[in-house]
């Protein structure tokens, strides 16, 4: 006999996943429309439906109760805290920009467009579920929803060999690392006898005092890292990143470089902080003694950013260059995780929001130039500044923001990250990151120099349509705005931790 209380609490819990339910309904609707109507003709219709679904998924947020750190629902599968609350509009925004980017650039054929919108919506739903999960089972399911569907997204251009090759590499690496992470989950389940994170964290504290169990915990932590470092494209699981980013359609690349990466970092916060750290006491956490994961991650962070930046220096394909730059940014973001403080966590979330705009913008320019008659090579950017000044100025701003130059948003984000590690007295990491910023200046400036200071090798006409320019503006405004007036975002972020 199931107690009535149990049924009632689960029925109430359903209202908390209303955003995901609405997204699912939108997916089903698009699927239905794609079957009934000749899907190759109604590109705009699918765009409108997908955007309506994403916007609609945010409507229930205003009706739901105030988030609280320990407000769990659906048998403790999910938590309704401020991080969950704000991640939903964040991921919806990533989805909106991706769909608009695919719509305006036409890099994905009409024949594949309806599937593309469906997959983008489904991955977005997976990410929304992932950041809310507080149960190993739910984390695994959401992680795989996000993963499996993004393999398909990479390979969506069925007739393009490079797209297929990228998808194959992505699926083989991805399935293996998520399998490894799952093995780590199974060890943790054996230790705690439960899949609920709050219960596991209690058992971990007890277990860390026995040397045998501590060994098991260290193995589990290493296995977790495999899955998470893969999703965030960090050393030593970054090999897939340049190949996949180059082979995938550019709007999808932009999507992957922001969405799943952000989800991976949030999962770092969700898994490592409650399970393997104590606190917060006056804003600082402490790793459970015997489990030195922050020092491992600090090393990973330093290697990741150095490796990404060094490899980016001699790339001539812009998508590959930005892929290595995104590896380097994973390194910067890990600094915030390593800092073990509320300030560090805030800086990660702040930087992710900033990164959303500037990275989507940079990839957006790449796809706009490539589809408007140019190519992805740095060659075709030579002298572009005189022929398409608006696009080039936009690109320069996105790149400067990625470097972290004032007065752009990337600068503020980086200041927060640096402040986080310095306030925790991890000076060597701050020095490494500062040196890396200087290195990164070189290759970002190479693009800017090609655009404005070099003569074009051939007279390619670049015509960027008005819709693309409007989309660029929508990404430019926050990149500039958050660089000058970032306090509202900082205030929102500081509520989370």
């Amino acid at each position: 006999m199931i107690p009535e209380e149990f049924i009632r609490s689960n029925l109430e819990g359903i209202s908390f996943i209303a955003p995901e339910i609405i997204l699912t309904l939108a997916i089903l609707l698009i699927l239905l429309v794609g079957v009934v109507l000749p899907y190759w003709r109604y590109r705009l219709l699918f765009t409108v439906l997908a955007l309506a679904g994403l916007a609609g998924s945010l409507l229930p947020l205003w009706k739901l109760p105030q988030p609280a750190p320990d407000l769990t629902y659906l048998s403790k599968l999910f938590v309704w805290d401020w991080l969950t609350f704000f991640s939903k509009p964040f991921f919806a925004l990533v989805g909106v920009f991706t769909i608009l980017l695919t719509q305006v650039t036409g890099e994905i054929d009409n024949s594949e467009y309806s599937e593309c919108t469906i997959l983008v919506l489904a991955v977005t739903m997976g990410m929304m579920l992932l950041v809310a999960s507080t149960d190993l089972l739910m984390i695994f399911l959401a992680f795989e929803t996000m993963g499996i569907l993004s393999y398909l997204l990479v390979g969506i251009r069925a007739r393009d060999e490079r797209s297929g090759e990228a998808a194959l590499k992505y699926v083989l690496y991805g399935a293996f690392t998520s399998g490894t992470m799952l093995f780590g989950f199974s060890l943790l389940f054996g230790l705690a006898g439960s899949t609920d994170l709050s219960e596991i964290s209690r058992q971990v504290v007890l277990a860390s005092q026995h040397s045998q169990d501590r060994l098991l915990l260290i193995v589990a932590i290493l296995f977790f890292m495999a899955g998470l470092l893969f999703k965030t494209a960090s050393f030593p699981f970054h090999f897939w990143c340049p190949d996949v980013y180059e082979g995938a359609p550019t709007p999808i690349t932009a999507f992957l470089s922001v969405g799943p990466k952000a989800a991976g970092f949030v999962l770092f916060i969700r898994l490592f902080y409650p399970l393997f750290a104590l606190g917060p006491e006056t804003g600082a956490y402490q790793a459970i003694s015997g489990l030195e994961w922050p020092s491992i991650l600090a090393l990973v962070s330093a290697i990741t950013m150095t490796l990404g930046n060094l490899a980016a220096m001699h790339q001539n394909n812009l998508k590959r260059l930005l892929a290595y730059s995104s590896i380097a940014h994973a390194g910067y973001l890990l600094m915030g995780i390593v800092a073990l403080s509320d300030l560090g966590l805030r800086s990660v979330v702040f930087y992710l929001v900033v990164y959303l705009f500037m990275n989507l913008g940079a990839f957006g320019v790449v796809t706009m130039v490539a589809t408007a008659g140019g190519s992805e090579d740095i060659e075709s950017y030579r002298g572009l500044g005189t022929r398409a000044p608006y696009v080039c100025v936009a690109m320069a701003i996105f790149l400067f923001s990625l470097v972290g130059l004032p007065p752009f948003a990337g600068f503020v984000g980086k200041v927060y990250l640096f402040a986080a590690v310095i306030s925790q007295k991890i000076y060597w990491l701050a020095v490494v990151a500062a040196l890396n910023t200087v290195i990164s200046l070189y290759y970002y400036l190479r693009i800017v120099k090609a655009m404005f200071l070099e003569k074009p090798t051939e007279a390619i006409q670049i015509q960027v349509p008005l819709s693309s320019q409007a989309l660029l503006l929508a990404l430019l405004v926050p990149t500039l705005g958050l660089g000058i007036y970032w306090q509202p975002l900082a205030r929102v972020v500081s509520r989370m931790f």
Partner: protein
Amino acid sequence: MSYSLPSFLVVSSLLFCLGMYTVLTRRNAIGILMGIELVLNGAGLNFVAFSRFLEPSQTTNLLSGQVFTLFIIAVAAAEVAVALAIVLSLYSRMKTIDVEEFKQLQG
């Protein structure tokens, strides 16, 4: 003859190691997928073994381990379906499933 928890853990660790070895050494895409299956099944076996042998207490819910394994089987099927679809579409164009033949993306 009765079996205890360690014997299951030994088997699952072996499955995991064999899977890892397969993934790292195989050049055939299908072979790598089989290695991934082994890793996933090692994890699944762990969950079942733990939920069978651990002492139940007030705070633990050991049935969730067996449920977890059912989910793993379903997800692994979905993952392999996607991977095989990708391999198939590549094979129809490249006439090979040797992963070292795919080197258009390099640099």
